[in-house]
């Protein structure tokens, strides 16, 4: 019986990648908190997971190099624009408190995924040692 890392770790590596990408997006939102006309964006974790686990993703074929992809696809998921609670005069839709809360939430979820992976590794180690 061979140890297969893909089977052993399950979906957690994918979740970790998505969390990391999301933290990048939220960091970009916070960095652009004072940029006029910047629109805050976020990743819909649920739809990403759906696309990655099933085959619901439909993409348009690009037959030439100059063709643009429909929308900004990101690891198969569309990025969504955030609806601000209060509009600002300069067209910026970043609300720092919301972005901060989302970033903190994302950091915790990243740590959770990390802990799951660590748990799996510990399980493997225990199996290897046979103690």
């Amino acid at each position, binding site marked *: 019986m061979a140890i297969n890392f893909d089977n052993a770790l399950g979906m957690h590596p994918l979740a*970790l990648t998505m969390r*990391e*990408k999301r*933290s*990048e*997006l*939220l*960091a*970009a939102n*916070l*960095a*652009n*908190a*004072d*940029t*006029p006309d*910047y629109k805050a*964006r976020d990743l819909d974790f649920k739809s990403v997971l759906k696309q990655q686990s099933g085959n619901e993703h439909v993409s348009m074929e690009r037959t030439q190099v100059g063709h*643009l*992809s429909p929308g*900004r*696809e*990101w*690891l198969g998921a569309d*990025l969504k624009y955030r609806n601000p609670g209060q509009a600002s005069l300069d067209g910026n839709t970043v609300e*720092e408190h919301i972005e*901060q809360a989302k*970033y*903190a939430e994302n*950091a915790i979820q*990243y*740590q959770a995924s*990390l802990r799951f*992976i*660590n748990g799996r*590794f510990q399980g493997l180690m225990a199996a290897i040692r046979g103690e």
Partner: protein
Amino acid sequence: MSSMKIFDIAGSGMNAQNLRLNLVASNISNANSVSSSIDQVYKSRQPVFAAELKNVLDEKNSAGGVNVLGVVESQAPPVMEYAPNHPMADENGYIYKPNVNTVEEMANMMSASRSYQNNIEVLNTAKQLMMQTLRMGQ
């Protein structure tokens, strides 16, 4: 390693806010620099921010930091003051004061320092997560 991009993003934000703080300091310190000519009087300076768009066509890298496009001088008219006894007064007895609004600049300074702190927090959290990731499986 792609995850190091978050440090670039937060770094660009800190860079932009740092420039903004520098301009605020310049504006406030020159708020009372009197001149005898309307052309030579100090004008309030403001940064222009724009989102980094260089990767926008590359769908895998659509998160970008801040770009500072440049610094613009405020077009508001300078303050004219009739002070014939002032050593800098022109032949008509006027001195010219900069168009710096110190109240606005103070509010600007607070906003810039808060945004800087936000970016620092993002950086610290990302660093902690990276350190934990490095210890994965131990």
